[in-house]
């Protein structure tokens, strides 16, 4: 059943796109592309849910030979374990909801059918990525989602900003992809395959000394490969330093932001890293954890000062993705994936909610464009700050135009509040709390077990980021829904969205409660073994004790790694219990700390933006350098545009000039020299000697002809004389002979 079901899941959205593309060639379009695409997604969702039943503990990949070259065979296939199914469900569910939401949101757009076709193509690519059992397949899906992301960010390509953003997104991710490709080349060269699972897969061969020795050089090599593969994830999941494309990607329609740039595609990086979990070594894990931690912190700080509602959410996404990376880097495989799942729902909800708000304001867009741009500039002057990108914020996305919307749009407000509570880590009733807590606990536990200062630092970063997250998310809520309307005219026009948009919000809001039960998650999702992490504390672990009691709090996320270690080998029961105890302890510490810091963040936000006890402006003025740094996004864009892009373009011009002037110059120069020198001689020779001879011959012939023609008297008798005389002579001569 597995293969047909997956095939249906893949083919439904692909067919929806294919119908659009083929009719497009004939310059037509299907009358209800929206319903077609949505139906395709719903079918895929149904199949994905059904697939839950088909999961087996030790699945085998279902493969076909794709390319066979003598010894080497590249296969393509599906691999279905619980993680795959969870991803399938997340993708199809969010995608279906986004489809439904878009029916309302995109209504009236001139390219309405195309939007749905692109969404279908994206869904196909994403699902293909998820179910692939090998790196090549993942890479194919990986790039295809990149293409869809490109197409959808640039959906309103008439806007220059959108055109720039889509190009930037594609190129930036491509830089990461090249790293991933190099990683693939390394793995392929070493293992002669790109399959991950099965007897000939990389994960089997990785323990085979024939392919990889477990000594220092082998581990070092594997670390490099792991980090390179992770480069792909850095690009796709918008980790520092390749994160800059994601905020710009907000130029796309908001449902796209929700689906691609919050819930699914950007999470593909996390998914990939999780898939590659078995090849991660201590060093590459640490790199991943640091990248994740830094990303979480950097993005969160930037988010504080944004005014564009979508940018705030975008940076929030980057930050949360950093969290997930941190989790996987710290070995908390399950926590990372759990956060991926919960985040997909509540972040999609936040984006769709913001879409609902933008939709409410959208009608105003046209005739208020100009004056609000002026307003923005005015405000910047008040701040006395250079806002390089400030004036680009469309008025319908600018939080400074909002406020007091909670009465106008109660459903949107309610659902967004749920999501905000969830992302901020408000305890116990929201899924985000559990997943975030698990990550913090995992990092702290890892630190305590390994006694590594790195993980303490990372834990600290994650904790601060959690606090900041709570702060800016509530800032968003307060600025948008509370207080007095800042722009009365726009406020008057605002209205609650139609039911096709509200229903998806409600569904997602339900999913933001711990519907995805952490206990269930922990029971089913097991981290794969990491054969090359031979941390000393694991080496002596005993076989022990499955007993980690499931009721004693929520320590299981941390335990998961310990359990994995236990299964592997070792004798020392005591040590195992030790580790278990440490993780449990770390979890308790982490929970208390995270509740405290989330509360602190919310409180500050309330004081700043609701009660107005403090003025954000004055704080900004006080810490102007820091503010400037945040406002300018740590100058990443400036660095890239000013240095990397400029350098590349300069280099290309240099090359082109080199080509034109040096290479072609040499060629033309050789030609010229040949012509000038060689040809001058030849020309002389030609003129004087060859032509001279020709001319002489011609002259002689001319002169001779002038004389000889007199023989032609024109009188027949003369000719006869000559002829007969000639005959006589000839005969006489021959007779004489």
């Amino acid at each position, binding site marked *: 059943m597995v293969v047909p079901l997956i095939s249906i899941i893949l083919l439904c959205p692909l067919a929806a796109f294919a119908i659009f593309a083929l009719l497009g060639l004939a310059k037509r379009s299907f009358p209800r592309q929206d319903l077609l695409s949505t139906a395709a997604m719903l079918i895929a969702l149904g199949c994905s849910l059904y697939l839950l039943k088909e999961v087996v503990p030790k699945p085998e990949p279902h493969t076909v030979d794709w390319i066979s070259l003598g010894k080497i065979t590249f296969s393509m296939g599906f691999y279905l374990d619980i993680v795959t199914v969870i991803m399938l469900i997340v993708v199809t569910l969010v995608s279906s909801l986004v489809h439904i939401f878009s029916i309302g949101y995109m209504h009236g757009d001139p390219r309405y059918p195309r939007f749905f076709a692109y969404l279908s193509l994206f869904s196909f690519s994403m699902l293909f990525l998820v179910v692939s059992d090998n790196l090549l397949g993942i890479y194919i899906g990986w790039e295809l989602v990149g293409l869809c992301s490109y197409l959808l960010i640039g959906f309103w390509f008439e806007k220059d900003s959108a055109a720039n953003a889509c190009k930037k997104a594609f190129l930036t991710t491509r830089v990461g992809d090249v790293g991933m490709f190099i990683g693939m080349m390394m793995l392929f060269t070493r293992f002669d395959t790109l399959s991950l699972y099965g007897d000939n897969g990389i994960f089997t061969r990785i323990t085979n000394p024939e392919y990889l020795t477990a000594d220092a050089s082998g581990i070092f090599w594997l670390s490099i490969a792991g980090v390179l593969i992770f480069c792909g994830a850095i690009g796709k999941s918008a980790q520092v330093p390749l994160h800059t494309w994601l905020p710009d990607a907000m130029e796309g329609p908001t449902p796209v932001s929700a689906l691609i740039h919050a819930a699914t595609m950007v999470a593909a990086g996390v998914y990939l890293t999780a898939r590659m979990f078995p090849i991660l070594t201590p060093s590459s894990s640490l790199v991943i954890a640091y990248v994740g931690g830094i990303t979480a912190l950097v993005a969160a700080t930037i988010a504080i000062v944004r005014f564009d509602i979508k940018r705030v959410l975008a940076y929030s996404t980057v930050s949360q993705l950093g969290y997930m990376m941190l989790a996987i880097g710290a070995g908390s495989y399950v926590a990372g994936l759990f956060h991926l799942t919960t985040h997909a729902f509540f972040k999609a909800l936040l984006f769709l909610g913001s879409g609902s708000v933008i939709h409410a304001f959208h009608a105003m867009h046209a005739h208020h464009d100009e004056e609000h741009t002026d307003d923005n500039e005015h405000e910047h002057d008040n701040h006395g700050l250079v806002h390089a990108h400030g004036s680009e914020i469309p008025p319908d996305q600018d939080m400074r135009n909002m406020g007091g919307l909670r009465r106008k749009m109660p459903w949107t407000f309610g659902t967004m509040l749920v999501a905000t509570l969830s992302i901020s880590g408000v305890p116990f009733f929201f899924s985000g709390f559990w997943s975030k807590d698990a990550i913090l606990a995992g990092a702290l536990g890892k630190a305590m077990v390994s006694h590594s200062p790195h993980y303490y630092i990372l834990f600290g970063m994650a904790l601060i980021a959690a606090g900041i997250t709570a702060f800016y998310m509530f800032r968003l809520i307060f600025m948008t829904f509370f207080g007095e309307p800042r722009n009365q005219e726009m406020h008057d026009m605002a209205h609650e969205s139609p039911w096709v948009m509200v229903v998806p919000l409600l569904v997602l809001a339900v999913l933001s409660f711990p519907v995805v039960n952490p206990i269930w998650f922990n029971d089913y999702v097991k981290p794969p073994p990491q054969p090359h992490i031979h941390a000393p504390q694991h080496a002596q672990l005993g076989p022990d004790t499955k007993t980690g009691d499931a009721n004693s709090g929520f320590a299981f996320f941390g335990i998961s790694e310990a359990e994995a270690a236990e299964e592997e080998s070792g004798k020392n029961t005591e040590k195992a219990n030790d580790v278990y105890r440490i993780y449990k302890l770390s979890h308790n510490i982490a929970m208390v700390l995270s509740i405290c810091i989330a509360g602190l963040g919310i409180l500050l936000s309330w004081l700043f933006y609701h009660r107005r006890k403090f003025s954000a402006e004055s704080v900004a003025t006080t810490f102007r350098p820091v503010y400037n740094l945040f406002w300018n996004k740590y100058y990443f864009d400036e660095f890239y545009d000013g240095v990397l892009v400029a350098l590349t373009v300069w280099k290309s011009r240099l090359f082109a000039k080199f080509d034109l002037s040096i290479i072609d110059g040499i060629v033309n120069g050789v030609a010229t020299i040949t012509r000038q020198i060689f040809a001058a001689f030849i020309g002389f020779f030609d003129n004087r000697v060859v032509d001279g001879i020709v001319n002489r011959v011609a002259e002689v012939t001319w002169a001779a002809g002038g004389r000889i023609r007199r023989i032609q008297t024109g009188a027949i*008798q003369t000719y006869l*004389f000559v002829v*007969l*005389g000639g005959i*006589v002579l000839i*005969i*006489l001569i021959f007779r004489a002979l």
Partner: protein
Amino acid sequence: MEFTLKTFIFYGFALLTIASALAVVTVRNIVHAAFALMVTLFGVAGLYVFLQADFLAATQVIVYVGGILVLILFGVMMTSGRLEMRIHIERGQLLLGGGISLALLMLLLTVIANTPKWENLTDDGTAFAPTTERIGVLILKEHFLLPFEVASVLLLVALIGAALISRKEVRE
């Protein structure tokens, strides 16, 4: 070779032929030349009789004397008019032409004299058989039919051509 009446007549014809031919090429008056030519043609016809070619002799007389010669005389009349009846001959040309002709004659005679195959081929005195019927059969029935037809076409073409060339331009 016994000297019979037959030989006498033969030599008579031969002499007549050659003498009149000489007259053709030497006399200055073109009309006289034409008449001398007539005599030559008669002579040749006589020689044909000696060669037992009776039909040919008759044809020679009828066609040449009756046809061609009259044609020539018409030509003389139409071109020369009254003034140009005399034929001009330049001395140098005369000498040169005479030389070449003489050389040619000597050459031919040498060839005739020095070809052994041709010696002693005398008139064996076979009985005369009329040739007219055989010629008729050969031309109209056997392998000379095609040449005959071709020759008649040629004649036709020549006559039409002659008429075309000699008529006055209609356009003018």
